[in-house]
């Protein structure tokens, strides 16, 4: 089994607020993140599979990049996550929730190999990993 990772970047704005909480409570929990701001996200998509005996590849990196671009980058890049993505009308656009939705977007589009991990960097000091519902050993 080989793990193959494609790295892409996208830039987006967001703010954190729980609609069930008061402004004061949101500010206490989320601090400055209540204000509109943005990040240069770095997304690492890792797929797993055996190299094809014909091509020596687990998956064509260009094909993987095209899928990620269509499903994720075009949808989130230079967008306001709270306002432009309906999913984040209900959920707070944290890296955790972004990673889960990115998994849900990519997983059904991969036909030749399995999605292993979504790693999303918000910046150089914070990143999240999501291995799907089944977890890393699934």
């Amino acid at each position: 089994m080989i793990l193959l990772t494609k790295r892409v970047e996208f830039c987006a704005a967001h703010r954190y607020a729980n609609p069930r909480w008061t402004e004061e409570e949101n500010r206490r929990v989320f601090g400055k993140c209540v204000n509109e701001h943005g990040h240069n996200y770095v997304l690492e998509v890792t797929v797993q599979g055996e190299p094809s005996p014909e091509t020596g590849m687990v998956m064509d990196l260009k094909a993987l990049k095209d899928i990620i671009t269509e499903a994720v980058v075009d949808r989130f890049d230079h967008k306001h996550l709270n306002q432009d993505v309906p999913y984040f009308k209900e959920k707070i656009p944290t890296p955790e929730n972004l990673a889960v939705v990115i998994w849900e977007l990519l997983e059904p589009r991969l036909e030749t190999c399995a999605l292993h991990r979504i790693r999303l960097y918000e910046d150089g000091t914070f990143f999240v990993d999501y291995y799907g519902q089944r977890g890393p050993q699934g």
Partner: protein
Amino acid sequence: MANADPRAREVPAAGRGREAPVVEATRVYQFSAAHRLHNPRFGPAENARIYGRCNNPNGHGHTYRLQVTIRGPVSPDTGWVEDAQRLDLLVRERVLARFDRSSLDDLIAPTDGPTSTTEVVAGLLWRLLDGGLPAGRLHRLRLEETPNNFFELERGGVDR
């Protein structure tokens, strides 16, 4: 607000009506500290042979880079992994406040290990953080002595 991109409507309702997804969240910190590798049980020649340049009697130092990973369900209230806020506070109080601009040899107890190798320091940091979090929340700790040398501890072993 009107949405110009029709594909935005295709975003799935991930996690809705199911158990909260389990995510690993990693925060990266750094601290600067001095140390000297030296095991008092050995003589000077033996220490010099084992630890080489790291045995310099005057010590040396590193800018350590620390990655701390917690693993848990995503809170429906905050969208963060449970206890993410506590982690930041914990690392500042238990690690950065003590270890940044410190001499590691003063902070290592004999029960932590024979000397302040990064393996021993990583083990100490794991115990300091694990003890301040709910059981099982701390998932991985990676301590980089330099960009070229780093050490990792993971709950349940590194069998991934």
